[in-house]
């Protein structure tokens, strides 16, 4: 049984402007000791889905459905009190901006000790403080006993995130959710923090979910990667597959917009055109179609399902293009062609009838 299993999660918010479908039918699972990377732009629903795991999106205007099975227990059915006992204890979370995420008026050690004492009532203040010091040392803060006595503003950005991680891990959680843990940090510090999360994961044997807009962040650390777009998962696979055989045009776009070390320096980064869609008025059909270079008429009407991409059952993709078409377009892109060139080649191949399956599907649709 996976540690965390999310089934058809939907999180909709009723607002004055209309119903915001922040998360719209998301399913994934995380095994013990594994790391899942969830990648997507702002507004793709990646943060909302994990905040929902923590029960932090519960509000009068939020409509949440589906299942969140944690260790077999459905968290959506749990009472506020039950969830509170799980939060910060079995499931811990760290956030994007470590300065604003720490209370400015309390000493760092005190904030960690508070997390310890909240879930262990028989621990004395002194013991909790010692635990805080121990945790600060574990996350690589020098002179932890002295630093525990400092306020967050006296820490550097990287140190603050280390302190947040220390706080999150102070109760040995089974699952750590890291929401953009490195976005607010310098590049050199980013690598250190990711390394730290990786090291602590193996030490604590926790499952980790890393949420990021940057595929580069999860390249090293994640075992599986889910790519989210407009409240849904559009592609999910082993991390290797995402980087070497991705099949969704959005994933191609994400990969095309990050610099790589294994290609020529002068290769241009290609941004994804357009902007993320409004979550109130989603585009019809495939919600990525307004930005997709390979869009066909039928894609504006038919909604794609997340289905196995090819022979590998762990690789699933929600795209209406044919598996072989996707493979040949990716091959073109990989050989250095721009999306525009790849699109023309794809159209040529289709016209030449090299791709009869697609031609038939087009006729049928």
């Amino acid at each position, binding site marked *: 049984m996976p540690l965390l299993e999310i089934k058809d999660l939907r999180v909709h918010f009723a607002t004055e402007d209309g119903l915001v479908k922040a998360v719209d039918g998301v399913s994934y699972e995380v095994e013990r000791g594994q790391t899942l990377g969830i990648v997507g732009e702002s507004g793709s629903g990646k943060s909302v889905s994990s905040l929902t795991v923590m029960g*932090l999106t519960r509000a009068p205007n939020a409509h949440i459905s589906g299942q969140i099975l944690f260790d077999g227990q459905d968290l959506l059915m749990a009472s506020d009190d039950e969830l509170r006992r799980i*939060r910060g204890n079995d499931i*811990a979370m760290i956030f994007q901006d470590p300065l604003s995420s720490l209370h400015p008026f309390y000493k760092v050690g005190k904030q960690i000790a508070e997390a310890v004492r909240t*879930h262990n009532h028989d621990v004395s203040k002194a013991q909790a403080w010692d635990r805080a010091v121990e945790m600060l040392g574990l996350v690589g803060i020098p002179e932890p006993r002295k630093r525990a006595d400092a*306020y967050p*503003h006296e820490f550097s950005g990287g140190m603050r995130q280390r302190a947040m991680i220390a706080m999150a891990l102070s109760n040995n959680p089974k699952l750590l959710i890291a929401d953009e843990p490195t976005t607010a940090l310098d590049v050199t510090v980013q690598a250190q923090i990711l390394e730290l999360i990786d090291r602590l994961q193996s030490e604590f044997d926790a499952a980790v979910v890393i949420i990021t807009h940057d595929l580069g962040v999860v390249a090293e650390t994640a075992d599986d990667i889910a790519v989210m777009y407009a409240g849904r998962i559009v592609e999910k696979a082993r991390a290797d597959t995402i980087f070497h055989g991705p099949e969704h045009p959005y994933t191609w776009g994400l990969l095309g917009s990050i610099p790589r070390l294994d290609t020529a320096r002068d290769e241009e980064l290609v941004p994804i055109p357009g902007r993320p869609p409004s979550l109130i008025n989603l585009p019809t059909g495939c919600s990525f179609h307004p930005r997709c270079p390979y869009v066909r008429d039928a894609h504006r009407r038919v909604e794609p399902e997340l289905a196995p991409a090819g022979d590998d059952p762990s690789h699933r993709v929600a795209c209406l293009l044919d598996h072989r078409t996707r493979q040949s377009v990716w091959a073109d892109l990989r050989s250095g062609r721009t999306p525009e060139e790849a699109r023309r080649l794809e159209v040529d191949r289709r016209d030449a009838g090299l791709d009869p399956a697609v031609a038939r599907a087009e006729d049928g649709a």
Partner: protein
Amino acid sequence: MLVYIVRRLLWSALLLFVISFLVFFIFYLLPSADPALLRAGRNPDPDLVAEINRQLGLDKPFYVQFWRYIEALVTDFDFGTSYQNNVPVRDEIFDRIPATMSLAFGAAVVWLLIGIPIGILSAVKRGTFVERMFMGAALVAISAPVYWLGLVSIYLFSNDIGVAARIFQPPGSYVPLWEDPSMWLRSLILPWFVLATAFAAIYARFMRSNLVDVLDEDYIRTARAKGLSERRVVFRHGVRSAVTPIVTIFGLDLGILFGGAILTETVFNIPGIGRTAFEAIQKSDLPIVQGTVLIGAMAIIAFNLIVDILYAFIDPRVRY
């Protein structure tokens, strides 16, 4: 820290100098009554008037008069002598301080006890009927003028209900705390509530908007993610931050009230600094007016300084 305090005190001295100069100058330009004529009796002899003027130093040029005033103030803490009854201004004002302090402190306790909890409750119950009711009531309370509220409450409580219940004493019944604590309390309850009404409303609204903002902060999300109870999230993490700006305006408000709550003291006939100032203005008693203005300014400056120093202890990010 010490350097900061010394610097602030020097600035305060300069500020007080400027304030006293302004008040002096205004009254010099606009003499609404001649103090010498007040003393010379009916049908005054011009020689007598001139003699009084000479004794009071009023025949000297403006800057000499001002200099003498400042000199006496700095060397002897002497505010001069009242034109009306020849009493030293310092005694006149200092006698009134207990009444004003009783009124201001009591009212402050009342408005904090009412305003802060209502503000917290309104923020936590954001968007509900509770919030709308409290904030609507606050708007009414802010809009009600103190003198009107005072007169209405006197009419309602000290004459009819008050006489029956024997709790609220009529205006003018103030006695110092050390003479009759029970009478002191009963004479001040109404003024406290009347004076506190608008403040309580302002503090409730201020507390609400502060707390609403704070509860949206990332560190509140962290507190929830830690699994803290909602009660602890709101009070230990939310209110702790939201209440700090309140300290600033509280210091300022208390300072202003120590300079005399003119309307409340007048309506309830409380012998405080505010009523003294009011009477002195009516009688063009410059030394008294000057004295009350300076005392008021000193109170505001002192409380501001206290608040700013206190802030360094409340907010660890603030260092001087």
